[in-house]
């Protein structure tokens, strides 16, 4: 019952607030925020229940579709993974709702905005609470739809609607693979319900399937297809381009997309399907490589970006790389832990960035900031906490989860594990470097914004500061509590129960506890090195970045332009499509349909009417003449008829 309320309150909020008139700004904010807050409180209660009773709740809400042999229900299924996700989603969403009241204060369309973020939350909750993969897919697509609507919220701005379309299309490409994965699951297991699929995984482990004439294990194929879907949603390399463009929307939207909803769906799916992935060694290795590469790749891009939101967006991409390679080395619990901590500190960072952009009247370039410490001390303080957590500094939330992942990668003790480990450690260094570069450039040093703006820069109002402070508070303590609660990698079974399945050969618990202290400390050391470099570059010797930029111009250009991924996609996919469409337009539309078809038929009536319209001289005496001639003709007709 409680679970149903949790899921349907956001939907109720969507409907009520969506029906409000345009200018009902205040009531829209209050209604939506309070409904979602209730939902958040209830999910904390459910989380509490799941921890202490270790119970799995499963209800069928009602039947969705039933065909020959296939029946799917709308369902509620709560185990420990879902409980964690519920808390993360609903709490962050509630804070974002409250924050939006302040951030979107002057927007008369606030009811629309509020109802859309409620809808976003609803779809994400439907996704995590499902007991079958089809309902999950429904949530998955719904989340994609809402992110499209929200990214394009300022649809009058060309860059915003282009970003929205890009988000939607890239996700569709990945979703095709996901759908194929679902079909194959049904084909192989004859069921779409998770528990039944996982029960039969061992029995079908060596089934093979023929795809385009190539025989392969069906589990491998399923896992690959599902993972490509996850790559799209979680913005892994090759599908990452939409994530940084999504910064075109309002800041609360990014706080949602990048932390709790949308991108977490990919990691959630991999963790949820751990019993499947455990049977596919190849897929796990693929996930590890993609995750590790994305991790470093996105971090290097973030090193040189100047847009405050873009830096944070690329850090999301990079952090999700961590989560995926954690999944790849079978440390699903560490991935979930990092997902949770990351969600809170990333929401903190985006809302903090929103405060700054709000204060700077929409300016997002960190080169034009500086010295914001005096103007916005509280935001500065919270952002520092957020970035310390992102860099993985003890005792902030990021330290525990990131360290768990890096240790797990090393403990895996395979070539790929070590590859992921080394990339991960380098990434920590990059992460702390760009975090502190951003902090120093934004908040410290002398101000670089125009003096005329100086008077208008103020600290954000309480309604915006409060959610940020709550997130900062959570970020401070979540790591320690989580470490204690989840018992990461040590005896993880206690908390996660049967929700996560790790094959006996892949179990890392013993190996992790036997690691040397150097490995355990490696991420912290790397993070400190990154901070020191950032300090040298931007405080101690401020000419160093310029010298490096001149020396490695090519490398700098590549990083600044994000490895030219957008340009390459433009060249490979967009341009040929555009050219082809233009050619076809010319050929079919202009030549065949217009010139030869419709217009040719239209010419004759046009010519006829041109002739006939000459009768319409507009001169009265002409009309009279015609009338008289007509009368005479009619009269003579009767006359002649009479005599004949």
């Amino acid at each position, binding site marked *: 019952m409680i679970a149903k309320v949790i899921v349907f309150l956001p939907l109720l909020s969507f409907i009520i607030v969506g029906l409000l008139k345009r200018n009902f700004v205040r009531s829209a904010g209050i209604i939506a925020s309070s409904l979602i807050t209730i939902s958040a409180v209830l999910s904390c209660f459910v989380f509490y229940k799941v921890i202490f009773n270790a119970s799995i709740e499963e209800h069928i809400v009602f039947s969705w579709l039933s065909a020959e042999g296939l029946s799917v229900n709308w369902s509620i299924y709560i185990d420990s993974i879902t409980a964690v996700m519920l808390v993360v989603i609903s709490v962050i969403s509630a804070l974002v709702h409250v924050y939006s009241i302040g951030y979107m204060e002057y927007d008369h369309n606030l009811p629309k905005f509020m109802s859309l973020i409620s809808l976003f939350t609803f779809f994400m909750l439907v996704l995590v609470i499902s007991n079958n993969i089809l309902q999950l897919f429904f949530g998955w697509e719904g989340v994609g739809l809402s992110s499209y609507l929200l990214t394009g919220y300022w649809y009058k701005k060309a860059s915003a609607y282009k970003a929205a379309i890009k988000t939607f299309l890239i996700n569709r490409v990945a979703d095709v693979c996901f759908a194929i994965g679902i079909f194959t699951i049904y084909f192989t297991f004859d069921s779409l319900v998770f528990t039944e699929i996982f029960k039969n995984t061992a029995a079908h482990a060596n089934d093979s399937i023929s795809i385009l004439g190539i025989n392969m294990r069906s589990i491998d194929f399923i896992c690959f297809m599902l993972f490509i879907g996850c790559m799209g949603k979680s913005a892994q390399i090759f599908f990452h381009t939409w994530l940084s463009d999504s910064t075109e929307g309002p800041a609360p939207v990014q706080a949602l997309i990048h932390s709790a909803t949308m991108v977490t769906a990919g990691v959630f799916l991999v963790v949820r399907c751990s019993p499947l992935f455990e049977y596919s060694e190849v897929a796990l290795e693929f996930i590890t490589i993609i995750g590790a590469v994305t991790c470093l790749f996105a971090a290097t891009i973030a090193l040189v970006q100047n847009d405050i939101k873009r830096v944070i967006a690329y850090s999301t991409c990079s952090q999700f790389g961590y989560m995926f390679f954690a999944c790849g080395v079978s440390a699903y619990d560490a991935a979930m832990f990092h997902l949770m901590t990351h969600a809170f500190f990333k929401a903190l960072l985006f809302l903090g960035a929103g405060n700054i952009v709000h204060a700077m009247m929409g300016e997002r370039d960190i080169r034009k900031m500086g010295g914001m410490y005096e103007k916005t001390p509280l935001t500065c303080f919270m952002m520092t906490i957020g970035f310390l957590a992102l860099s993985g500094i003890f005792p902030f939330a990021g330290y525990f989860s990131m360290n768990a992942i890096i240790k797990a990668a090393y403990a895996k003790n395979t070539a790929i594990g070590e590859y992921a480990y080394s990339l991960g450690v380098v990434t920590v260094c990059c992460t702390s470097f760009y975090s502190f570069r951003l902090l120093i450039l934004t908040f410290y040093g002398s101000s670089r914004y125009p003096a005329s703006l100086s008077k208008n820069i103020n600290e954000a109002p309480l309604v915006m500061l409060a959610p940020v402070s709550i997130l900062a508070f959570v970020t401070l303590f979540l790591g320690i509590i989580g470490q204690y609660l989840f018992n990461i990698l040590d005896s993880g079974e206690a908390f996660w129960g049967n929700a996560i399945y790790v094959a006996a050969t892949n179990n890392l618990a013993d190996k992790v506890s036997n690691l040397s202290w150097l490995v355990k400390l490696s991420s912290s050391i790397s993070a400190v090195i990154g901070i020191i470099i950032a300090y040298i570059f931007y405080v101690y010797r401020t000419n160093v970045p310029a010298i490096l930029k001149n020396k490695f111009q090519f490398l700098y250009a590549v990083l600044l332009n994000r490895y030219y991924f957008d340009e390459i996609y433009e060249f490979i996919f967009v341009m040929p499509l555009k050219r082809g469409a233009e050619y076809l337009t010319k050929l079919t539309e202009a030549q065949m349909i217009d010139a030869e078809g419709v217009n040719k038929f239209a010419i004759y009536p046009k010519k006829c009417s041109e002739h*006939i*319209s*000459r*009768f*319409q*001289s*507009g*001169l*009265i*005496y*002409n009309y*009279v*003449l015609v009338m*008289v001639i007509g009368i005479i003709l009619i009269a003579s007709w009767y006359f002649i008829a009479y005599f004949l």
Partner: protein
Amino acid sequence: MQFTESNVDLIHFLVLGAIIFSIGLYGVFSNRKNIIIVFISIELMLLAININLVSFSVFLKDLTGQIFTMFILVIAVAEVAVGLAILVAYYRAKGDIDINKMNQMQG
């Protein structure tokens, strides 16, 4: 009224009516300058028809025709009033009542 011994016959009235009607008709479509004359010509045509009606009424010994004539006269007057009002309004709007310039309906 009795015309029993008169040498004025029905045919004379009809011819008179036809002549007046033709004059009116000619006036309507031969006139290319003045719309007032067009009006007068239309009135002339109506009167010619009235002559027809009255003469038939007399020769057929049926009063309906003459009563009908009274109706037509009243309606003709009303029609002239409306027509002249339109003309005045038209003159105010365009500053001219030249027929040759009233050709905005030209296709």
